[in-house]
């Protein structure tokens, strides 16, 4: 590729036998051995691997709770569990999936692995703090899982007061878990910001950065500015529960609405923490498999920052029916429509990138295209909910549940799978099975729609969320949803199984199996511990696929 002017030593290596390459270069996986070399590592790539393992375990736990929820809802009666048990099951699902999976997963796994590689650095700016953030994640997760296993939490993932300060379930240990995991995410964001500012390779100007980096940067801004607010909020809840002081308790003059404001001041931007990294992945995958430069690079880059900024001013749309003033509601409603603009800019630009591209449908591209479709539905139904009048009808119904899952699972989860497949050869040095990959993408897409589309319908018809019993007329939608969830479960389990297999037995790959541009593809797969033998010099933008194709021809001649 021509992103590097100087003759590139890896280009030659990528052409040689991949097995030979793996044998001659010590890589980050085999450079040192033993469990200590993993648990005390400062290498961002190894920390990413630690995160892959732990977030996948968290995902499986969260999925198990979701399975219980869907099974209970198969019939209108509460025959599998009691109301309390159901409350605990959906709370476990929400707390695990939001705080232990969705928030950390892409920054901590793909961000950790790729940020230094993509900007031509040897590591993140603070390797020890990076390792510490993984330990904080582990400690926080243990607190959270302890709360769930030792009796459970029944507040949902939102911990609304005064219920959360009066219920006799394990709110304190769950709150402490959220607080600690919050610091893990602050330290990740802090590391990325400093790294992107100070460690870019020579010639890598801001507008030559891959869009994944822009989205990680915007995500990091939200992490460092939003997360401390939820930290102090859940701390106040814990103080109120421990000492009975009444910070949010109306009996002492406390204001429960203040809790909701503080909570959503973080938790609305937090959904952008969850989805922005996904946008970054899609912006990398689409050009690579359409063989075209991204359309509207600077618009996509700036829209990430716009989302991060405007995202801090829309939290009030969660409080339309909570007693917030009508004027505040109108302002928040208008601002929520505003944030649709940068989001739509991204979708239009990805679509425009596809136009006249030479598209091929490898697994990452399939996931990315499915992402666009599902995210479009998720995003547009968000506008329904941002319209204050309509929200009064849809508030606290399955419509909200469906919207949230279209964005978080249909959007974020598919983007994560697109990314993990796309960079799998770089991470593991081995190829994933292409057929199984495509099959799982298809199963996820179909299963997802069967699970969540009926929820839009029944939500619109009035099915409220968070009930374990419901009137019989909704059963057909719930049966569809549960059936779809089992298909979806298979689709999610498949990559866990075949990627684990591929990690040990997959065929080895060369440095750039997808012939993609970007610095991460110019070092061996898996990369050496210091990422590059020689720090690259960058002279052009990140998606020069036209030049790339030409160069291939030149080399072939």
């Amino acid at each position, binding site marked *: 590729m021509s992103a590097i002017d100087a003759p590139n030593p890896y280009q030659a290596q990528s052409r040689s036998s991949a097995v030979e390459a793996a044998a001659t270069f010590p890589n980050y996986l085999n450079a040192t051995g033993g469990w200590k070399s993993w648990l005390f590592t400062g290498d961002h790539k190894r920390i990413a691997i630690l995160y892959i393992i732990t977030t996948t375990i968290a995902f499986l736990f969260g999925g198990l709770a979701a399975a219980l929820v869907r099974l209970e809802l198969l019939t209108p009666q509460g025959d599998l569990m009691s109301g309390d048990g159901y409350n605990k099951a959906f709370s476990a699902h929400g707390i695990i999936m939001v705080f232990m999976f969705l928030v950390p997963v892409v920054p901590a796994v793909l961000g950790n692995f790729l940020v230094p590689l993509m900007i031509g*650095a*040897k*590591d*993140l*700016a*603070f*390797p020890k703090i990076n390792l510490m953030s993984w330990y904080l994640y582990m400690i926080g997760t243990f607190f959270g899982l302890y709360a769930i296993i030792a009796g459970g939490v029944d507040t949902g993932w939102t911990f609304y007061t005064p219920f959360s300060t009066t219920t006799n379930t394990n709110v304190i240990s769950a709150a402490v878990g959220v607080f600690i995991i919050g610091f893990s995410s*602050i330290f990740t964001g*802090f*590391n990325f*910001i*400093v*790294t992107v*500012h*100070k*460690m870019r390779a020579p010639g890598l100007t801001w507008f030559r950065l891959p869009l994944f980096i822009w989205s990680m940067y915007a995500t990091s801004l939200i992490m*460092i*500015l*939003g*997360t*401390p*607010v939820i*930290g*102090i*909020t859940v701390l*106040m809840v814990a*103080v109120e529960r421990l*000492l*009975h*002081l*009444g*910070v949010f308790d109306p009996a*002492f*003059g*406390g*204001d429960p609405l*203040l809790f909701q404001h*503080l909570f959503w001041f973080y938790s609305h931007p937090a959904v952008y923490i969850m989805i922005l990294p996904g946008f970054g992945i899609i912006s990398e995958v689409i050009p690579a498999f359409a063989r075209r430069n991204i359309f509207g690079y600077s618009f996509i880059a700036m829209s990430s920052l716009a989302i991060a900024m405007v995202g801090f001013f829309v939290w009030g749309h969660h409080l339309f029916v909570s007693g917030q003033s009508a004027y505040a509601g109108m302002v928040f409603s208008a601002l929520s429509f505003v944030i649709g603009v940068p989001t739509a800019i991204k979708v239009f630009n990805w679509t425009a990138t596809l136009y006249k591209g030479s598209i091929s449908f490898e697994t990452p591209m399939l996931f990315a295209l499915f992402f666009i479709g599902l995210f479009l539905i998720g995003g547009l139904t968000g506008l329904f909910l941002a319209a204050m009048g309509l929200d009064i009808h849809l508030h606290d119904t399955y419509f909200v549940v469906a919207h949230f899952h279209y964005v978080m699972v249909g959007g974020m989860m598919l983007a994560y799978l697109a990314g993990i497949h796309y960079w799998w050869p770089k991470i593991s040095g081995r190829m994933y099975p292409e057929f199984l990959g495509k099959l799982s993408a298809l199963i996820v897409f179909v299963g997802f729609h069967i699970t969540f589309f009926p929820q839009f319908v029944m939500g619109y018809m009035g099915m409220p969320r968070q009930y374990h019993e419901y009137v019989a007329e909704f059963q057909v939608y719930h049966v569809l949803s549960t059936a779809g969830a089992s298909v979806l479960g298979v689709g999610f389990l498949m990559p866990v199984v075949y990627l684990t297999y591929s990690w040990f037995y997959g065929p080895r790959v060369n440095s750039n199996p997808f012939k993609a541009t970007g610095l991460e593809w110019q070092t061996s797969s898996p990369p050496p511990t*210091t990422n590059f033998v020689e*720090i690259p010099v960058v002279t052009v933008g990140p998606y020069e696929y036209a030049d790339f194709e030409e160069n291939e021809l030149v080399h072939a001649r």
Partner: protein
Amino acid sequence: MSTHASADVHHHEGHDPYLAHHFEDRAQQDEAHSLGLWVFLSTEIMFFGGLFLAFTVYHVLFPEAFGLASSRLSVSWGVINTIVLLVSSFTMAMGVHSAQVGSRKLLLTFLSITLLCAGAFMVIKGIEWTEKYHHHLIPGASFHFDLNDPTAPETQLANWGERREAILIADPHVERHAQMFYVMYFCLTGLHGIHVLIGMGLITWMILRAKRNEFNTRWNTPIELTGLYWHLVDVIWIYLFPLIYLIHRH
């Protein structure tokens, strides 16, 4: 990492023992460390921001109760503590300067004065909290806010009877709402106090490292970062002091 490098850095520019392996040069490393601390400080400000917001909301909801409760704090202790912290910030800045010009003796002196000031701040806070305990102003079961307390400053006023009635008309639950002020007071000063204690730990660590002669004109980043952190602790107090001590004195 160039662990084999000679300790005498001036003769071996290529093997700087203070340069971590993943940085290209010292300038990059220093800038990264300094930016990192600034980013961390913005996180800290948002962390305190949540509490400041809660304080402001309750102040707006219960102006009478917050005014009365605030007037029972000791402004003179507050002023003394503010001066103590400002002095400590000055000595910290001088300490950073001493490190940059390479004077170990001055560095140790200034760091020690800063540590003493920080200790004095915590002692004074302890005195104030103990006073609150004796006046039953610790929120919880034993909390007791008496509008007729003859030792309270507001009851000394000539027209207190009239004002008391006016306050009770404006806020019949003023005594209960006064507890909210003290909840916020202890949360804010407590969280700030924890930061002072962390700062004292950092300064002590820096004194120990300075005694081991670890710092010189080329390597003093830890001192600089400790200084930045300490100034933040100071700045937060500058906002905290008028917010909790002076709201009723206009």
